[in-house]
């Protein structure tokens, strides 16, 4: 089966400084992949490059194919249609990922209307409104009707992240990119959002690219992990294998750190 996202030997440089070095990554339809590494290791950069959203001044070489279409060198026009159709992204900080001046219902309606038109479905006012209610219910938000009229600052962090997920779902993407979606949330909310993401990905048959620095979090939602350090992929494989028998020093240190943290927690308890 053709991969949803296929990155081959992607290198990115800014002013002669190499940020990514020959990164390769492939995601099959419905596959859940974790991208792990510390801050600045190039995880988010890889994800942005995958959807053609590199900041100006960065030059990319290599090949990126999104649903069979080349991303590097593609025109902005062709990328605009490709982005919403194939991918959608959930970001780390749900407050800044939502427009502060629009009720959340309207923000979900915008990509939804586009997707309905794309699929040739009815996109009248009532169709869109019903779709928004349905999406809000899917992300398990209570009282969708009242909630859709609220502004982002009137919601809690977890609620905002659910709204952001609903916006991503509205596109009905083949690949959901989740860039540290739980980092800004407290532990209880984190677990809820992870459960929700795992369920939605399974229910909708989406592929998932889950970006995180948090090993235990990643291990709960993905099948396969790719470990990055300093812009290089140092290890990749099925999640159980990589975590039980890490080959690379960096992965070993990550696993050891996670274990000692767990140990400390258990010791304290």
């Amino acid at each position, binding site marked *: 089966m053709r991969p949803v996202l296929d990155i081959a030997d992607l290198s990115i440089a800014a002013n002669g400084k190499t940020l990514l070095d020959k990164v390769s990554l492939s995601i099959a339809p419905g596959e859940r992949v974790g991208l792990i590494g510390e801050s600045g290791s190039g995880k988010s950069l890889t994800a942005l490059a995958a959807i053609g959203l590199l900041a100006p001044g960065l030059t990319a070489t290599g090949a990126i194919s999104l649903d069979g279409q080349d991303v590097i060198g593609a025109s902005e026009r062709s990328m*605009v249609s490709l*982005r919403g159709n194939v991918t959608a*992204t959930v*970001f780390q900080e749900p407050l800044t990922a939502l427009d502060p001046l629009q009720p959340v219902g309207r923000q979900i309606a915008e990509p939804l209307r586009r997707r309905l038109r794309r699929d040739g479905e009815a996109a009248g006012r009532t169709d869109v409104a019903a779709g928004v209610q349905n999406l809000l219910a899917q992300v398990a938000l209570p009282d969708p009707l009242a909630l859709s009229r609220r502004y982002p600052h009137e919601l809690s962090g977890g609620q905002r992240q659910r709204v952001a997920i609903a916006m991503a779902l509205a596109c009905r993407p083949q690949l959901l990119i989740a860039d540290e979606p739980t980092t800004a949330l407290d532990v209880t909310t984190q677990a809820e959002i992870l459960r929700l993401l795992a369920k939605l990905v399974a229910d909708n048959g989406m592929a998932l690219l889950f970006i995180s620095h948090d090993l235990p979090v990643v291990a709960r939602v993905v099948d396969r992990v790719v470990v990055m350090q300093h812009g290089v992929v140092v290890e990749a494989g099925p999640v159980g294998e990589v975590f039980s028998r890490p080959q690379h020093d960096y992965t070993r240190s990550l696993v050891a750190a996670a274990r000692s943290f767990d140990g400390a927690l258990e010791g304290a308890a």
Partner: protein
Amino acid sequence: MTTPELTIPQTHPRVSATLWVGLVLVGLHVAIALLSLVWTPYDPLGMTGGRLEAPSWAHWAGTDRLGRDFFTQIMLGSQIALVVGAGAVAIGGAIGVTLGLLAAFASRWLDDALAATLDILIAFPTLLIAMLVVAASDEANLFTAILAIGIALSAIVARLTRILAKRVLLLDYITAARTSGTSWMGIVLIHVLPNIWPTLAVNFALQFGLAAIAEASLSYLGLGAPPPNASWGHLLQEAQGTVYTAPIGAFAPGLALVILVVGINLLADGLRDVADPTRSAQR
């Protein structure tokens, strides 16, 4: 045990006292300007009293050196002030917002070029640019004054728009919108303009006040609407020679201008609070 009744805080923006005072002051000018279209106490050009009379019940603001009723002329002047203010802001806003957005979205060298040009333009006093534009046209009339002031203001609007738009473009929700496939035009219309609008609107109001002052200045210099259009600036200029003997001639149009500009600024402040739901909720 009974459940205590919860009151849910109102999310509707509260209209502030600032907004009300602004509305009253600006509304007063608009009402007077509209009234003067159909009725004035006297014929603006008729000699209806003695020369340089002090304020009285018959002549609320006295008479000028030709014996014309001063209050009538101030009423007519508010028409010019409002028309020039609105016209100049419309022209300056249209040019400025377009240029500013263009710069914000442009490639780096075009942005740098536009930004440098704007900085140079802003270094010139608004009035000087307006005078140049008037000088470049064949005759000074109401329209050249509006156009000149509008062009002069556009640089300030453009620079503000560029900075505001660039700041919004860096935010995650723009990236989020782009990842979901929103086109550039969609991003401008749905996210950028609504988000910079509260700040722009306040600035437009400020520009409205500046435009009214600039118009008075141009007319004072004889570069605005030609007589017998009773611009406040023209009235001030006429009153200059008699400012010691009949100070009301300079005081009255000046006061009218001050009330209009203060009213506009208060209105802008109040409107900003209404336009921005995050601000109204904090109060």
